[in-house]
């Protein structure tokens, strides 16, 4: 009897365990209904999916990370810049088109792309009629100037890009509107506002990417009487089609329609949904499950599903996934102030010795990690040649490394038996740590003994951003990643490769490249008005960087992005390397509940 009882209990326990295991593997497919609406794997990467003009409904974002700031002056996150177009406008912005076309500029607040003087140093823009703030008052050129001036107030408004500050006031003569002693607080001399609809920029030096810098949200207008300084990010005043209804940092955010916005004044924004809701999660797996279940439409962060969500989605909802480039190049770089990386042959030895396929696998493989990186310019930047330019044959015959070539280079650098070095990697990026371990293993085969030092990832600027500290710690290899602030070789590579950008702290030119040829090419690029010529220069700069063997690219990063079944007008744009938020609409009839029932009826 006892044996029978025990056996029955065991059977019951096993059955219970099986039920739980079954539930775990099938939880996500029970929901969502997105099986029914998935229009095809990777469909939105190059074209518009579910085109439609229906207005209404709530567009529901989910996110594991809040914006770094919702103040247009203070943000540096790509997804935040993308989102800011809901409530802010710029003189120029990116076209609402898929792929490369989406990275080209078009007038926004301005009537045209600006009138440029012959010497390329003066840009004059005229504002459109009927552009207004959320209280109905007109947006003036002075508001645009004041918004730009805020970049100078780094003591109060830190964190955002400062391209315009560097370009318009390279000597740092202006101290920002909060310390401006002029009555109207508009003392920045390089910008003039002869009337309320005209704004004139006078650049001390020509820079052909200037319009790109005006498209960054930090060039948005801000109204002086609504500027709450450091608190502005908690409740920005809207110049776009939506305004802030509520925002609780780290919890949720809601935008509602701005009744004062006039569609006729805005050729870019269609404003399909009635509200834009964001819910912040602390559990990425939970968020992914809820995306798949149809409770939310898309990930605000546009950084891809977590490994668990990825597995479920690939198995059961592949048609709801896109696999775009993130815009990031992931790489290792070799600081030249750490021996023996001052020797080009030693750098080449590492590049040849690395197992590029293993590095790609460590990053997550071709789908979640990306294509093997063969050079340093991201494929979405004009002038990039993608995998067709592969000077070290990294994606070809040598994708598993070339030990013979590596040993030749080691001999040429005077270290035929190899050497010891340290790989610096951020401790808060598990994938980067895995990449460092993969690199360490392949370098061992050629006699390079690399120790891994996981440093505090939140202190990057003070640790690997300090060349002195890098030398002191002996960081011969630094693992990192970089994406363009705007789609140009200047927006991507100038801080990394231009010798003038080497800083004592906060340096990102980790390799300490001081190559006059590269610096001259950047100067030539900035002065070049012709787009085709700029593309050619971008290609040349990339070639110079690769010829110097300063970098070992790992991948052109890709990610698996969830596309909710209710979304309309979905496409990826190269401007933000994510879905173009401002064009999205929702099919309100397809509520999560109705889609769930349609799912279960199948």
């Amino acid at each position: 009897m006892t044996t029978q009882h025990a056996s029955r209990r065991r059977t019951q326990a096993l059955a219970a365990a099986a039920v739980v295991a079954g539930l775990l593997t099938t939880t996500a497919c029970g929901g969502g209904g997105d099986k029914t609406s998935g229009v095809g794997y990777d469909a939105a990467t190059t074209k518009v999916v579910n085109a439609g003009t229906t207005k209404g409904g709530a567009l529901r974002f989910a996110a594991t990370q809040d914006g770094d700031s919702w103040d247009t002056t203070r943000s540096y996150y790509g997804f935040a810049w993308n989102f800011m177009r809901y409530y802010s406008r710029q003189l120029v912005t990116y076209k609402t088109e898929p792929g490369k076309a989406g990275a080209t500029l078009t007038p926004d607040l301005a009537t045209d792309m600006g009138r440029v003087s012959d010497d390329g140093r003066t840009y004059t823009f005229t504002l459109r009629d009927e552009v207004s703030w959320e209280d109905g008052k007109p947006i003036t050129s002075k508001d645009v100037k004041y918004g730009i001036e805020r970049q100078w107030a780094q003591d109060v408004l830190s964190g955002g890009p400062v391209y315009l500050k560097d370009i318009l006031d390279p000597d740092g003569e202006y101290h920002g509107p909060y310390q401006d002693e002029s009555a109207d607080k508009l003392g920045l001399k390089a910008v003039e506002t002869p009337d309320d609809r005209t704004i004139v920029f006078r650049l001390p030096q020509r820079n052909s990417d200037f319009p790109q810098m005006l498209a960054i949200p930090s060039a948005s207008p801000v109204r002086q009487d609504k500027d709450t300084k450091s608190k502005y990010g908690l409740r920005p005043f809207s110049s776009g089609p939506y305004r802030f209804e509520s925002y609780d940092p780290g919890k949720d955010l809601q935008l509602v329609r701005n009744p004062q916005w006039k569609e006729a004044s805005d050729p870019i924004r269609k404003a399909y949904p009635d509200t834009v809701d964001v819910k912040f999660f602390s559990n990425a797996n939970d968020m992914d499950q809820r995306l798949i279940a149809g409770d939310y439409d898309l990930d605000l962060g546009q950084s891809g599903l977590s490994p668990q969500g990825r597995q479920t989605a690939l198995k059961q909802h592949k048609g709801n996934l896109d696999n775009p480039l993130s815009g990031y190049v992931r790489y290792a770089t070799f600081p030249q102030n750490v021996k023996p990386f001052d020797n080009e042959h030693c750098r080449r030895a590492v590049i040849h010795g690395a197992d590029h396929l293993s590095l790609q696998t460590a990053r997550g493989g071709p789908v979640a990690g990306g294509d093997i990186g063969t050079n340093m310019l991201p494929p979405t930047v004009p002038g990039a040649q993608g995998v067709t330019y592969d000077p070290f044959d990294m994606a070809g015959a040598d994708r598993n490394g070339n030990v013979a070539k590596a040993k030749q280079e080691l001999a040429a650098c005077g270290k035929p038996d190899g050497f010891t070095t340290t790989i610096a990697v951020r401790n808060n990026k598990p994938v980067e740590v895995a990449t460092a371990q993969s690199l360490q293993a392949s370098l061992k085969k050629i006699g390079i003994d690399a120790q891994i030092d996981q440093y505090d990832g939140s202190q990057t600027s003070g640790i690997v951003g300090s060349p002195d500290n890098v030398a002191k710690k002996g960081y011969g290899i630094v693992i990192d990643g970089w994406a363009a602030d705007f789609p140009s070789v200047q927006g991507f590579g100038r801080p990394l490769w231009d010798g003038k950008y080497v800083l004592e702290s906060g340096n990102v030119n980790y390799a300490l490249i001081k190559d006059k040829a590269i610096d001259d090419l950047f100067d030539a690029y900035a002065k070049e008005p012709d787009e085709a010529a700029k593309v050619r220069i971008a290609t040349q700069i990339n070639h110079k960087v690769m010829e110097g063997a300063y970098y070992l690219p790992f991948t052109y990063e890709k990610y698996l992005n969830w596309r909710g079944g209710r979304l309309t007008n979905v496409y990826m744009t190269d401007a933000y390397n994510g879905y173009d938020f401002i064009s999205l609409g929702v099919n309100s009839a397809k509520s999560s509940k109705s889609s769930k029932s349609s799912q279960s009826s199948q």
Partner: protein
Amino acid sequence: MTAGRRGKSRRPVLRSGPLAVLTYLIRRLFAAAVMLVVIIMVVFGIFFLVPKWTGVDIAASFVGKQADPAAVEAVREKLGLSEPIHIQAWEFFKGIFAGRTYSTGGDVVHCSAPCFGYSFKSEQAVWPVLTDRFPVTLGLALGAAVLWLVFGVAAGVLSALKRGSLWDRGAMVAALAGVSLPIYFTGMLSLATFAFGLKWLDAQYVPFGRDPGGWFGGMILPWITLAFLYAAMYARITRATMMEVLGEDYIRTARAKGLPERTVIGKHAMRSTMTPILTMLGMDLGALIGGAILTESTFNLPGLGQAVLNAIRNQDLPIILGVVLITSLSVLLANLLVDVLYAVIDPRVRLA
């Protein structure tokens, strides 16, 4: 005469009467206040002094990708990190009790007491963030505490009374599982089963003020998951203590006197068993009120635990400092409450 006799006879009683309890309470309150000041100083030291010693520049993480040294210095100034440490400490103390004024870049802001400063990240005042998130954590901790006390203590008592039985073994295996399994595992499992699999519960947090029913529904899984861990510990402690108490002479005496078993267990044995349980409850509840980080993160509850987790990610020291102080205060208050309850339960404590 009568009064005098009463006075004389009361003298020893006074030591354990209301006055003694009050004296005891004042003594404990004073000790708690001293402890709180010490905690503030230690916490302040950890967050503001240690980075200085280790050469970590907090300000550098709040500037843009290509910030120049001047921008970093400006941020350092704004965050008050360039002041000497004793000035920073004094300003911090002053802020808590008298408020303080911040002045940067022509921006002058007064922060009323209790001022814990402003979030480095969101620029929100810390105190309203703490008070906004506190009820979520309190609701989680109290709800779970009720569950784990009821089920944990009951399971422990039954196990002790039915020692060696199937029930006892089953309960202790479950307790072992509860203690061994981390909350993020049981939490994810419960979400996968009941929220996404069976769809019995939505398990999404809704503020109580917006929808009490939704709030209750959203809290069921977090309560159960958290209570599962603690109930397991309480069951094991209760079982062990109860078994020890049941072997005491006074229990044997009570049984020998023919008292009903219910009275022996319920009145005599339980009173002694509850003493260590009460101690544990004070510590656990206090610590949980300071932030149940794993439970709140797993179930996306916007409480203090989630706030401190985000703050750690963002190096948002004022928020971290605020939550640590709330945690310390909660533990101190909970222990104070436990001490008072001891004094009520056990007269020997009052005389100690």
